[in-house]
């Protein structure tokens, strides 16, 4: 009897997995530029860290200053989530734009991976040692990479979807 319920549990688990995968794919297929822009977190912007945010990579602050201006872990989490959305935007551009710059797309994918790893390391260290120097340096690196990713995304949109560039700038 137990093996019978185990078998049914396996079938149910596979069914749930297939259903969730299908919902995820349908949701991605239904994406639009506007739906992606609406997923960007508006509660903090790296404009506090750089006057040329979105146009150039770089931060006009020291690691200590940057940590204060990004409101610590909150800013890191915004960077983490927005990096995921920017990655989805790169995927969307690849799918929907004619001849997008492939090197730029691969760089954006690499940026997203590095930013997310850096943020996770920073947040983990923050959980154990609060705002130590190592945490602030990791946060600074993540924010720096994020400004680079945002500038590359601006370049991608300028080349392929200029019409939504003003909305992107406003959302960021």
């Amino acid at each position, binding site marked *: 009897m137990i093996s019978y319920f185990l*078998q049914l549990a396996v079938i149910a688990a596979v069914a749930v997995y*297939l259903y969730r995968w299908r919902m995820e794919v349908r949701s991605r297929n239904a994406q639009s530029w506007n739906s992606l822009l609406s997923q960007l977190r508006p509660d903090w912007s790296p404009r506090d860290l750089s006057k040329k945010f979105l146009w150039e990579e770089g931060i006009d602050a020291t690691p200590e200053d940057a940590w204060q201006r990004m409101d610590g872990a909150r800013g890191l989490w915004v960077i983490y989530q927005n990096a995921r959305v920017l990655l989805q935007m790169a995927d969307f551009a690849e799918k929907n734009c004619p001849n997008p710059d492939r090197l730029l797309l691969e760089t954006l994918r690499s940026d997203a991976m590095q930013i997310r790893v850096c943020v996770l390391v920073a947040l983990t260290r923050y959980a154990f040692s609060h705002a130590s120097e190592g945490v602030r340096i990791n946060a600074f690196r993540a924010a720096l990479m994020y400004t680079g990713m945002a500038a590359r995304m601006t370049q991608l949109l300028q080349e392929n979807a200029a019409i939504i560039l003003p909305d992107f700038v406003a959302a960021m």
Partner: protein
Amino acid sequence: MSVESAIGVLGALLLVFLTVVLARKRVYCDYPVFFTCQIWCLSSTIVGLIASSLPPDDYLRYYVVSLVVDALFQFSVLAELGRAVARHNRRGSPRWTVIALFLLPTALLLHSVLNWSTPTGLTSFGLFYVRLQQALPVLLVAFLLALIWWSRLKGLHWPDLPLQIASGLGAYFLVCLSVAILHTHQEVGEAYHWADVAQSGSYLAVLGYWLLKLS
């Protein structure tokens, strides 16, 4: 008219409508195997309705052959979906060694979890049929899961049509697997037979789903 014949006639009608819809949308250009599979299903349904008047042993032989051909078509359709997804994402076709590496442990895992027992009093051919009925859904579910995992690993997008085909096939494979599990806890009889009828009914639901989505 018996329930089985009614399901057969309804299935044939749905397959005719589906084939017409697929032909009008020129699905045969991009998905020739899927299109051919529907024509095969229509032919085998019509032949099955005619063959249902044969003696049980002869009908069983016909049914086993059609079951094997069905499974070969379903594997081929899944492979076609994999190629279509790779093509849509401008990537090379799936590396079949990667798929096989996923498929083998998945099939072993599924099989190790399931307790395969068979009804008593079967002929050797009947036993072969029951084993086939148990093994094929496991392999088909494993292959579908392997394709999905490969596409998730590569971050590939599934266009609407392959997603709809995979959804229908996935639902049907799970029903077949559930019926196979149910049969391991049944003896041959009325309940055994109605489980098979329910399985056929589920394929009608899949055909209806495809008609709804594609028309």
